[in-house]
């Protein structure tokens, strides 16, 4: 188990990067401009790539360097580029309908982080891992999950929903790097490709939404009820 005996520098490096990506999730949560979401997402992906590489270095998993490279290329460059193209097509720069003000959303996000911390703390102490970076990784995994769902539920633009889904996936990927660095590489690579296909499908659907439903805000998608 990597996290149980890790040298202090590595451990603090992991913590720093994990917390930085959580902060970037909060940047997305607190902004209402679609461009900011995109930059925050790209930065988060680069940090995760750095994390993969450093886990590979400290845990002696050379295959993680490849994963880090692919993460940077796919999540850090290709996905943001695809999403940028969708934004250009949309002519929507910011969220128009808001259920919650960004400030209240931030508070809700903070509450979800506390909840995630409580859950991870219990799990961590029952595994005898209290105080290690594993608890932090689990906290960030769960709280990015909750923040992603928060984004999905309080935002209406099609693009925010796509990014919300990507934050969900980023959280899992980040936690997996620290908790299960030995996970077979095949799975990780296939999941990366899968994400690419997902975003491509979203791109096509957004075009259909514009052409046939005339809107990209889920606020106006209200024909089907009951």
């Amino acid at each position: 188990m990597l996290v149980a005996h890790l040298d202090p520098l590595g451990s603090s490096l992991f913590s720093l990067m994990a917390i930085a990506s959580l902060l970037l999730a909060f940047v997305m949560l607190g902004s209402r401009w679609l461009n900011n979401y995109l930059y925050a997402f790209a930065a988060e992906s680069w940090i995760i790539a750095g994390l993969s590489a450093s886990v590979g270095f400290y845990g002696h998993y050379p295959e993680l360097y490849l994963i880090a490279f692919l993460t940077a290329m796919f999540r850090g460059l290709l996905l943001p580029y695809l999403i940028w193209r969708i934004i250009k097509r949309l002519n929507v720069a910011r969220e128009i309908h808001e259920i919650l003000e960004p400030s209240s959303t931030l508070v809700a996000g903070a509450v979800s982080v506390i909840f995630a911390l409580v859950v991870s703390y219990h799990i961590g102490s029952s595994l005898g891992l209290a105080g290690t970076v594993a608890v932090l990784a689990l906290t960030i995994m769960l709280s990015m999950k909750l923040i992603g769902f928060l984004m999905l539920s309080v935002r209406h633009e099609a693009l925010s929903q796509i990014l919300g889904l990507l934050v969900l996936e980023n959280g899992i990927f980040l936690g997996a790097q620290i908790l299960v660095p030995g996970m077979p590489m095949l799975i990780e690579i296939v999941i990366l490709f899968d994400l690419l296909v997902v975003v491509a499908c979203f791109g096509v659907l957004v075009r259909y939404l514009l052409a046939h439903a005339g809107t990209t805000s889920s606020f106006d998608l209200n024909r089907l009820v009951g």
Partner: protein
Amino acid sequence: MTIVGTLLAVMILAPAIAAVGCVLVYNARAAEMMNLAASVVVFAMAIPITILSASGPYQFLAGYIIVDMTGSWVILCAAIVYLLASIYSVGYMRLLHEEQRLWAFYALFSGFALTILLSAVMNNAGLYWIVIELTTLVSTFLVGFERAAESIEAAWKYIIIVSAGISLALLGTVLFYWCGSFVLGPTYDMTWETLRAAAPKMNPGLAALSYLLVLVGYGTKVGLAPMHTWLPDAHSESPAPISAMLSGALLNSAMLGIVRYLAIADAAQSGHLARTALVAFGILSLLVGALFIVRQNGIKRLMAYSSVEHMGVVALGFGFGGPLGIAGALYHMLNHSLNKSLMFFGAGNVMRSYGSKEIASIREVRARFPASGAVWLAGAVGITGAPPFGLFLSEIVILRAGFERSFDWAVYAVAVLLIVIFIGFLNHFRAMYFSSAASADKQAAISRWCIAPMWLALAPLLVFGLWWPNGLWNHFMAAAQSLAGPIP
């Protein structure tokens, strides 16, 4: 290569070739025939695979592919629905006046069948997740095929809700891997069997958390309430053959994941929590189904909520567990696949003929469809769980399993809800068949292709309601045993 391996390879290759062929020939007539041929081949292969799986499980490709009894049962259900829906779509899709794009429809259709079949043979939990994700991506474009504002809306809701849902399943999968890494070391192949073997040494708290995440995640795809919200939209807005595939084949393939994880949770000593959670979701699905069936305006939405209800019943069967519960749930899957296909085919026919999705504008069905109307009405009686049709038998067995496993409270709740659904569902059919009103002119002539699969679905349904073949019973008992593992 063994016989099973050859049969499996042929079964997987047939829809794959059809999908590629549809793209290459670019012709509607050729595409529909290729898809139909593929579905016949899949059906012909699925039967021997199901029978031979009893002497399994068989593993292929370094253990990434498995043919076991539960998986092959899901394959059989999917193959039946695929065959019926392929016959039906030959007639139905010609009514849509989309000749130019039909090749794409059939390419996606056979691709969709391919992903469903693949999901049932995946032996690696991570790859299973990926294939389930693929089923969503392929079927999204089938749901939105008609390109009306409503169908695009349904497709969008479908992909967003289901992707968000199964990302929870991915988190659960990663956490299960973590659970296993305490026992098996940092790198191992995450097959169902290794996980179950490692389960007794897993941390029960972490295993329970992982199981609940997986349950909610795949439960979204199964359409268990309260994660069912995509289901009525997607089922009602897609073309009728796709509705049948979604309901009769796709939902089962996601249920298979829950069942496999349930076996692991059982072995990890969190079986009680796991079962209670599954039973609670099942009852909630029945409740939501009942409430929305009683006050429903759309004919296909009525069928969709009935799917929510029946997936709830299947979840109850597996949740109760024991040989009786598992046998009932597997039998229910088959009967539901047959019966719901019949219902969606009938709904598609009347929808096209009356030119409306509203129950209120469909009147005097008997006068317009003397023979196939009678079949549809019989199917409606069957889908509410009334004798002499298959669903009656399987529901009774599941309820008996509930008593046996001391879930009495659940059985009483289910019994009440099933009666409410019976009354509510058939009341809509009473209105459509026996209340007279001025109805619109015939909008479209329904061809034989659209009628024949209804008969093909009704006949086995009636047989299974009157006679539960002994061979099937033995098959279920063996499947139950293989799910529960060697009894200590």
